[in-house]
């Protein structure tokens, strides 16, 4: 039962066409904008203030890398120039080995820095806390660090920090690279004293956390501190150099 339909003839057919065209255009536009607004990437989802800090850090990284490249180029120039090539190379190798020895912990080291004493209060100072402290020190540019504390038999072992230094809760204290230590902990860090001290004092940093655990922090900037403890130089057994 289809009623007879009188097809409506729109005199202003152009107007209807325009209207439909405009609607379709708007639909397409809205869709396109919608699609565009749902795309993104990892960095794009970061907040603006984070991006500013990321850019700061990246430019520090750039400076450091450019410095290294400059060092390499001048060292290259030293041993490329004719006369005492082997002598210059020997001197360079020894100097370089000394620097790397400081970083690897195989040579004793001294320089300006900070000596930090962490005393326990009501709560234990945990391995996580000491790990945080080390990360903060590294972030502040510490070049050599050592952890000391009370050990067994009345000794005070000192552990030199390297890349693979690890912390674990053990007994009433913390094991640093396997060596058991108990509070009070003495951390010696060689680097820029003011920067290190400031890093420890940031809200939520080591000072805050230790105080919240009922302990106390004492940080002393010094013009020259010495770290004599060493790390054994172990050749890796499973990792091999690759090109």
């Amino acid at each position, binding site marked *: 039962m289809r009623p007879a339909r009188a097809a409506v003839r729109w005199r202003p057919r152009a107007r209807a066409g325009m209207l439909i065209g405009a609607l379709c255009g708007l639909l397409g536009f809205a869709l396109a*904008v919608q699609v565009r607004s749902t795309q993104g990437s990892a960095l794009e989802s970061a907040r*603006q203030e984070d*991006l500013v800090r990321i*850019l700061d850090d990246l430019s520090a990284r750039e400076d450091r*890398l450019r410095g290294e490249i400059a060092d*390499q180029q001048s060292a290259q120039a030293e041993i490329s120039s004719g006369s005492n090539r082997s002598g210059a190379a020997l001197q360079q190798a020894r100097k370089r080995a000394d620097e790397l020895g*400081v*970083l690897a912990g195989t040579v004793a080291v001294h320089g300006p820095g900070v000596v930090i004493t962490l005393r326990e209060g009501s709560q234990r100072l945990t391995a996580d806390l000491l790990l945080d402290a080390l990360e903060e020190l590294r972030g502040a540019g510490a*070049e050599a660090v050592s952890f000391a504390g009370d050990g067994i038999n009345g000794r005070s072992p000192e552990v030199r920090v390297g890349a693979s230094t690890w912390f674990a809760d053990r007994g009433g204290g913390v094991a640093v690279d396997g060596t058991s230590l108990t509070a009070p902990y003495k951390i010696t860090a060689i680097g820029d004293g003011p920067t290190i001290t400031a890093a420890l004092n940031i809200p939520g940093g080591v000072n805050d956390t230790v105080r919240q655990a009922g302990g106390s922090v004492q940080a002393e900037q010094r013009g020259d501190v010495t770290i004599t403890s060493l790390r054994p130089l172990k050749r890796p057994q499973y990792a091999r150099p690759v090109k």
Partner: protein
Amino acid sequence: MEPQRRAASGLLTEILEQHLDPAYEVAVRRRESDPPSPRELRVGALARSLVVLVIGALLSTAFTRASAEAPEVARTRTALAADAREQAALTDSLHRQAVLLRDRLSAERASALAGSAAGDQAQARLARLEVATGLVPLGGPGLVVTVGDANGPPDPVTGDAPPSAPNDGGKVRDRDIAQIVNALWASGAEAISVDGQRLSPTSTIRAAGEAILVDFRPVSSPYEVRAIGHASRMQAIFADSAVARAFATFVQLYGIRFTVQRASTITVPGAAATRLRFAVSQNGSR
């Protein structure tokens, strides 16, 4: 079962063929039998105009909202993100250049030192220290630990699950990564890299707000931590560690992604060297 089949095909044919609301046909028949009064016509026209007005406002609101997704601030933020990407790419290429120069320098130095006992000794000591300080790319068996932010709630329109987590529990922090790295060292790892950044004695794992940076380079979720060492032994000790057990519960509680896999060959790149500005070896030469 004729009526059933007709009903089922009716649904699909209705979707595919019946595009116009059947209420219009019904309304026409009703109007023929019971013509509307002028008042009803006026009200109808008013309602129709109002609805069209609302539709227009709806369309333009959707449009402005979609384009306002990127207001001035976000456009600046997009520019900043583009800057950060460029800068990261630049530092990566500088790193590659530094490694290349270092290799070339090592080779020249080795050739200049060859022949003399002192030279060989110095060269050997230097090579061992370069390995010990993470400057040399290494390969071997080990573990790959992948940890990632929990997925946020899915977008109701597109169904996508964005990786950013709205709640604190679902976000991986720099401390988490540092603790995982700590547990891997304790498990006997010989070399570790985080998202392609090798960890050296001075490597930093820090946070800039919500973003994590390793050695001042931003890294993003999911974070891949590679550790070279005795794979099965490391896996056993690592699985027993406090942080691994904590993360296993976080998977249930917050939806954090956490996997530990053994691999027979992993490679880690070399780190960038650090110049010493304060520390001096006791030998006196720096």
